[in-house]
């Protein structure tokens, strides 16, 4: 109660006001097109082990018609209490799945290169720029999770290569893991994308046009 005896919070309505009826649809280079069933590529593999006992594992690769979503998982060495303690707390999440300047030097570095020379990395401060024009490439964090002895970060990578392979690059310099490359076979990616394209969940549905950044900001 305030001094005047009036409650600070107004009574809740039966239901909160809905946002405007139009549903937000991100531009295709930013958006995971979940109206397609993604194709799982069973590519689980160890990327590398840091000097302080952390294993980095490529734990999921899902291919959509436009791009791919992948997950990197960090697992402490069994029985190593120091390594186990390292993967707890928000500081570690910032290192693996976060944005922001304070952890830039400590960041689990993730990147990709296309055979035509294009590249993308997660070494940015605030995520990819919002612009009405499609950038050459996008690598953005798509959330993460952790607890119980692991932390993982999800990434969205766009676009799929029209020709050639796609190479993921991972390094964690301040923990002693030098650059590791993982080549994703381009033909397998394109075949997986085609499989996802035909696995449309709501065939014939009308899709709303994307909301462009200039309409938001």
């Amino acid at each position, binding site marked *: 109660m305030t001094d005047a005896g009036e409650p600070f919070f107004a009574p809740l309505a039966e*239901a*909160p006001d*809905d*946002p*405007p*009826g*139009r*549903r*937000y*649809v991100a531009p295709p280079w930013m*958006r*995971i097109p*979940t*109206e397609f*069933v*993604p*194709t*799982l*590529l*069973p590519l*689980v*593999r*160890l990327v590398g*082990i840091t000097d302080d*006992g952390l*294993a980095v*594992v490529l*734990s*999921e690769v*899902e291919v959509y018609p436009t791009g791919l979503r992948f997950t990197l*998982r960090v*697992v402490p*060495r*069994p*029985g*190593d*209490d*120091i390594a*186990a*303690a390292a993967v707890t707390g928000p500081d570690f999440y910032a290192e693996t799945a976060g944005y922001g300047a304070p952890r830039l030097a400590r960041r689990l570095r993730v990147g990709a290169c296309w055979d035509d020379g294009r590249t993308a990395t997660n070494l940015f401060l605030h995520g990819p720029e919002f612009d009405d024009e499609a950038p050459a490439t996008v690598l953005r964090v798509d*959330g993460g*999770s952790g607890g*119980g*002895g*692991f932390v993982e970060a999800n990434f969205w990578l766009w676009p799929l290569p029209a020709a050639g392979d796609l190479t993921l690059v991972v390094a964690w310099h301040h923990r002693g893991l030098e650059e590791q490359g993982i080549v994703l076979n381009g033909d397998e990616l394109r075949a997986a994308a085609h499989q996802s394209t035909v*696995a449309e*969940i*709501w065939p014939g*549905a*009308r*899709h*709303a046009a994307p909301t462009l950044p200039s309409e938001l900001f």
Partner: protein
Amino acid sequence: MAQLSGFFDDADETAVGAHRPYVEPEWQRIPHEVLPTQLPLNGLLAHGRDIALVLTTVTVYPTGLVFSVRAVRHPEAEGFDHDLSGAMHAFSNPTSADRFRLGIEYADGRRATNDFPGGASGPHPPETVLRDLGGGGSADGAGATYWAWPIPADGDLEIVYAWPGRDVPEGRYTLDGATLRAAAAAATPVWPATDAASS
């Protein structure tokens, strides 16, 4: 007052106290120390009212398996579905009629459901576990990830789903038991045997 200057100078910053990290029992725990085997079984389970259920990322460990279910909104559904993500989990609304129901059934009749989202309930060790590992959501839908234990020693494993509040009738998806057992046997250690610290 005692002279405290320099009190911490000799402290070992890497010392670990007696309070060691909790390690969950086998039936609750994803064994991250092994590289699992993934089965390319992603597929549509069912259409309901304004949502579709999709099975994704079936991942097999030596002891159990992890899989995800996504509720994908119809592209023409407008606005934001405030209730969708919460309705996928029984943590906060265990008795809601709108809640997503999920279960597993073994060939010998053992069952577990997401009515107990934390996993094991009743006797320890339990007969089976279906644990809700959490999930997320967006304007396009919501998802949840589950741990199922154990790998069936014989027969298949069925995933049973229903969502009455979203007009999804009860349905079943069969995971082939022989495929699960082969995948569980194919999982490999993350750590070289000589590199793991003594447990």
